[in-house]
């Protein structure tokens, strides 16, 4: 672990990403870091002046993981000396957390902590939807997706406006994006059509994409309605008693009928209604609702609502799996396989192996290249570096524009 922090962890890249410019600003040194040490010791309100400072402390404490919090109105480590009431969060990346546990009721391949390539498809569908929604509807550009190390994914948005959102605005944004509500008990968990028959435009635009995902993932792969129980679940979502009875009768003879066939049966029932009739409209709406309920992102809303929520830093090691929390490119998310993410053990082995060869060539002295670039961590660090570069470029532009205006 210590070797990982000492030689591999990209402190510099993390610093650039959080700080938005080269010279340390309050974005970094008034930022809260929280360490989880061995034996469940939790250390909050740490802050640092530079990435070297942070690295020193991390190497000294050797935490199992650490988390990044908001930028406060003064340095978190001087919290006690701050005026009463004068210490509060002022800025924070807008963050999202999607976790596989929220999908447990609808995935059939694994459950609980387990994850495989197949259930990753749920996550990648969610990423698609969220990524487009944020970019197109809210106009944010600096998005960083980070694999959480086990069965979830985090999103960090670093746009200036996003950083400055108040808790109330965050709550509103989450409300806009949240479609699926309620616990495991109710079968129908959608709240989208308030007083209207048609879907809100934000959902209408992604429905087409979700329909594709639905047929591939839910019907073909996961086969969610493929047994008696699954069939019942589907029936509960259909608002028309006549159709339900007809389908139940049809399926009772064939309890292991495949989901795809069942879905076709349902569609056939819809087609048998008169075009333009109220019944048909209701059923079509129900069909759309089912598609959305099964494929729309399920967000952990509490994470996004409050600025002071802590979230695990990228490139930390997941304590259970040993995998690194690496950045993920949303464009190639479909090909991402969580099982190919390097673990800390693997990286250290790679380091040892290359060590031998480089030692032979260079002899003594510091290696010319950073250690991480000799391991499979390379591409991921570069990804963060590029992302940070983009943010810094944007930041410089803004700064220059602001300076121009003031003239």
């Amino acid at each position, binding site marked *: 672990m210590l070797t990982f922090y000492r030689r591999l962890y990209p402190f510099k890249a993390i610093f650039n990403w959080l700080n938005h410019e080269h010279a340390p600003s309050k974005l970094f040194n008034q930022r809260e870091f929280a360490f989880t040490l061995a034996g469940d010791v939790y250390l909050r309100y740490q802050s640092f002046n530079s990435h070297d400072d942070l690295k020193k402390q991390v190497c000294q404490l050797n935490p199992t993981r650490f988390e990044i919090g908001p930028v406060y109105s003064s340095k978190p480590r001087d919290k006690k000396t701050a005026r009463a009431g004068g210490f509060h969060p002022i800025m924070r990346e807008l963050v999202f957390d999607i976790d596989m546990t929220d999908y447990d009721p609808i995935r059939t391949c694994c459950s609980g902590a387990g994850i495989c390539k197949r259930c990753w498809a749920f996550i990648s569908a969610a990423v698609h939807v969220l990524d487009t929604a944020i970019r197109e*509807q809210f106009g944010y550009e600096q998005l960083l997706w980070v694999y959480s190390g086990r069965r979830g994914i985090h999103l960090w948005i670093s746009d200036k*406006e996003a950083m400055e959102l108040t808790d109330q*605005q965050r709550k*509103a*944004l989450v409300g806009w994006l949240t479609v699926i509500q309620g616990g495991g008990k109710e079968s129908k968990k959608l709240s989208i059509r308030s007083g209207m028959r048609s879907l809100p435009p934000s959902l209408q635009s992604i429905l087409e994409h979700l329909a594709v995902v639905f047929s591939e993932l839910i019907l073909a792969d996961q086969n969610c309605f493929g047994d008696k129980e699954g069939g019942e679940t589907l029936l509960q979502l259909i608002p028309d008693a006549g159709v339900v009875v007809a389908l139940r009768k049809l399926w009772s003879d064939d309890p292991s009928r495949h989901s795809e066939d069942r879905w076709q049966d349902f569609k056939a029932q819809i087609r048998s209604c008169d075009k333009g009739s109220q019944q048909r409209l209701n059923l079509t709406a129900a069909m759309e609702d089912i598609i959305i309920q099964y494929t729309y992102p399920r967000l952990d809303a509490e994470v996004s609502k409050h600025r002071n929520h802590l979230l695990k830093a990228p490139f930390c090691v997941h304590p259970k799996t040993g995998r690194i929390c690496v950045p993920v490119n949303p464009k190639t998310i479909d090909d991402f396989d969580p099982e190919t993410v390097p673990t800390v053990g693997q990286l250290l082995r790679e380091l040892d192996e290359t060590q031998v060869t480089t030692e032979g060539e260079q002899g003594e002295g510091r290696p010319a290249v950073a250690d991480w670039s000799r391991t499979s961590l390379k591409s991921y660090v570069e990804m963060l570096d590029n992302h940070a570069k983009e943010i810094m470029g944007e930041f410089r532009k803004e700064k220059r524009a602001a300076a121009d205006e003031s003239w």
Partner: protein
Amino acid sequence: MFKGGEKKFTLNDSGSPHVGQHGFLKYPTRLNFYDDAPLFDISIEEFETAAIDRLRILAEIESSAARNRTWEELKTVTNAQCVKYLPLNSNTAKNNDIESERRKDHLGHFILRLAFCRSEDLRRRFIKAETTLFKVRYEGDVFSEREQFLSSRDFNWVPVTKAEKQEHWNELLSSYYGSKIEAERKKAFESEKYYKVKWTRVPDLVEKRRVFLAGGWAFVPGREQSSIIYHEFEVHIEKALEMTARMLPRLDEDTRLMPILDNLSQGFLAGISSEWSNPAGENPDELKAEMIDDLSKKHFPMCMKTLHDNLMRDNHLKHFGRLQYGLFLKVLGLPIEEAIVFWRKSFSRMTDDKFNKEHKYNIRHSYGLEGKRANYPAKSCLQILTPGPSDHGCPYRHYSAENLQSALLSTYSQSGLTSADLPEIMAQVKAGHFHVACTRVFEITHSFRGVKKGEGIGGGESVTHPNQYAARSMELDKPQVEGDAMVIEA
């Protein structure tokens, strides 16, 4: 920076040499965003009335929220209160006092700003109440005047052009709320004017998905325009309050103002409401949530007073404390609605959600409205004496000698208890006669009402129930009030 100070001077120093006559502000519209501080001379009386009258209205709005009034009810109540204390007529009203009405409104707002800028909690509540008041007024405003008000300010919105509307026609139409009849909705939509603002300015509409978003811009239909204005108002007041808070310590204050401001903010905390300040209006015997604090100081026995003080201090009580105190209040005559209001206000740090989930049921239960619907009696002294030591037992029994003495002195010294009385009380406590000690305290603290030693709570009876104590104390207080009134009349 100077402005704050200057404002202050003009407000309080009617004869101040620092500021000359600034002339009266013109108030072209009924609605006011309160951008500029009032810069005119006023008397200290005017200062106080303007503040108290406005405070009454805000307090009413606050308790409306605690009482779960609907928006319509709240509007009616608030409007009624406004007519009474702070009339604000539209331009069309044949009333030549419009100018002074608006002046008072303006003034009251700024005085309360000074009073309520001082803590985060006060600021939050003030903003909430003020915004509600603004909403009530905005909704009740005459159309032409509202238009005039809107055009008088730059709200920084971009009108959506025809081409843009055309471009997003379908999206806009599907998120347009209106008549249930499709054709009517379409028609209304076609003539609807749209405005573009950054989505962060209409978070409430975004949360409910009532607008269309593209690239961070929210397309707000004209009918939802008010949402932008309310948010603008809120943000505006919030900023102004924070500014005032920073300014306040630097004010060169003469001693006339701070006590008034202190009183005002405390009045808000305790929730002075109109009913309580003039009990002549409604049934004066009925207890209101707002009266409890005052009553506890005058009439409660020490056990209940301790509970009350703890509740006020911590904004919380443990379960048995709540039970004991709640039942006591019930028997005292606090109706259930008021009890809910009282507890809601007391648990000020709790969210509405948590309160409704965890406490409302228990309160209703203790009033026999839930569960087995038993009419629970309040705990008697005997019951209070039995449980182990805690903050909700009998202080005479559970406190150590030193604690009891200092508590007695700090609680009752204003009512006439002196350290000379302590040895006698302590002797009774040592002997285990807690009732007697409590009764003796009653006698001493009510001696100014003519209660003599040995008389107890009437006819030599000693205290066996906290409600007995409080009831007798309040009874003694009554004729006295009438007596006072007569003195004034004479």
